């Protein structure tokens, strides 16, 4: 794992940006995930909800501490000009 994937940094502002992309990258890099879940078949035309559910399951398995109750500002599609 490269330094870019160091999962130990706390969430928050700092010299490095900690983003949800980084959190997901860490979650998928977890050994626990790799050993406990089989590789997913190609997404193809699978139902969108089923695909989302599979992604969420995989991420939460690798990052169990990830909050389920996200703050309101991420549950709402926000106006983009600010």
């Amino acid at each position: 794992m490269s330094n870019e994937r160091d999962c130990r940094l706390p969430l928050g502002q700092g010299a490095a940006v900690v983003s949800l992309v980084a959190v997901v990258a860490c979650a998928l890099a977890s050994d626990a995930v790799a050993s406990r879940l089989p590789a997913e078949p190609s997404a193809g035309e699978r139902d969108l909800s089923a695909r989302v559910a599979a992604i969420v399951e995989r991420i939460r398995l690798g990052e169990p501490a990830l909050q389920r109750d996200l703050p309101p500002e991420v549950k709402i599609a926000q106006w983009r000009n600010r």
Partner: protein
Amino acid sequence: MAVLTGTGVDPAEPRLRLLVLQPTPFCNIDCSYCYLSDRKSTATMSLETLDLICRRVFESPRLDRQLEVAWHGGEPLVVPLAWYEDALELMAKQRPAALQLKHCFQTNGLLVNEDWARFFARTEARVGLSIDGPAELHDASRRTRDGRGTHERAMRAVRLLQDQGVGFHVITVLTERALDQPERLFDFYVQNEIREVGFNVEEIEGVNTKSSLAGRNVETKFRQFIKRFFELVWTAPKRIKVRELESAIAHILSDEPVRDEQNLPFAIVSVGYDGMISTFSPELLGARHPRFDGFAFGHLATHRLSDLEHAALYRPISSEILRGVEACQRDCRYFRWCGGGAPANKLFETGRFDATETMHCRLTRQVMLDEVMAGIEARMRGPEPRRAYAGTS
């Protein structure tokens, strides 16, 4: 004072989250894709009008504990800094004790100097800078009225804000020509230590009736751009945070269906320099459309926020917006992760608020979700794709 509950407002009703204030419609530049019709008007908001705004907003039972105040023009920085010193002091004095105000300024950056940067730092205001990437891309659209590019001055603002430790993000409007250059854009942000980026699309809205993204096959190019940008961010996730990628992941992870604040009456309240009030999409304020007399539902001198629901113009518009959201819910498989799209884009692309799919929603919601999901799924299946990024590392 009406901060939170106990005021007779249904808890299920949306709270007022964002107050968009237009200190002036005037803009000191003339971007090719601007949607504002009145950007040559030099009218400005008076402190008396701001005082009225405070009274009307701060008495509203829809207030929550925090209110974001977005100063959005025109170009807000053409109004003198001294006015904002007084304005923020006035708002701080008038606000209910339990209400936290968070100010943000969306600016083209041309007028940012040391004084402005210190003001932003002192007031902990958040700044959004409009920069479309490297000079060639930026100056193609973001020019002065006499045709000169504005990139150099916008980048000076980046340095000034960085020197003062002011938190800022960059909003980049994607036009067709940007879609061939994801690496170049990524490189630009990384080299300039721009940590947070939001991608807007060139929208068909207001007086901007055409978009380079509306052409044939452009959606495919847009998809490839997002796919590649996700790859680039994935390889360096601590260097840059892209609002659209973050939102898509947040929406995927959310246990609840996404709602769009632009479809929730009074979740956003927009007030013009003259005290005219609107809600839903902020772009509606001051916009014109053949089907409507305008989108201002009242004036602060004569209307409380709660009065606006009874305005003659409000009911047909809010009903049509609601029908549009219901149609999206019925017909669109992305609704759970979208919330029904942006009313202003529906109106200006299709002529109606009760429309469903738009170019705007295909690009900013559907393609975004598709490509973020596909990117994550690809990495769930096994070793990551090795498409090396040759730029700054």
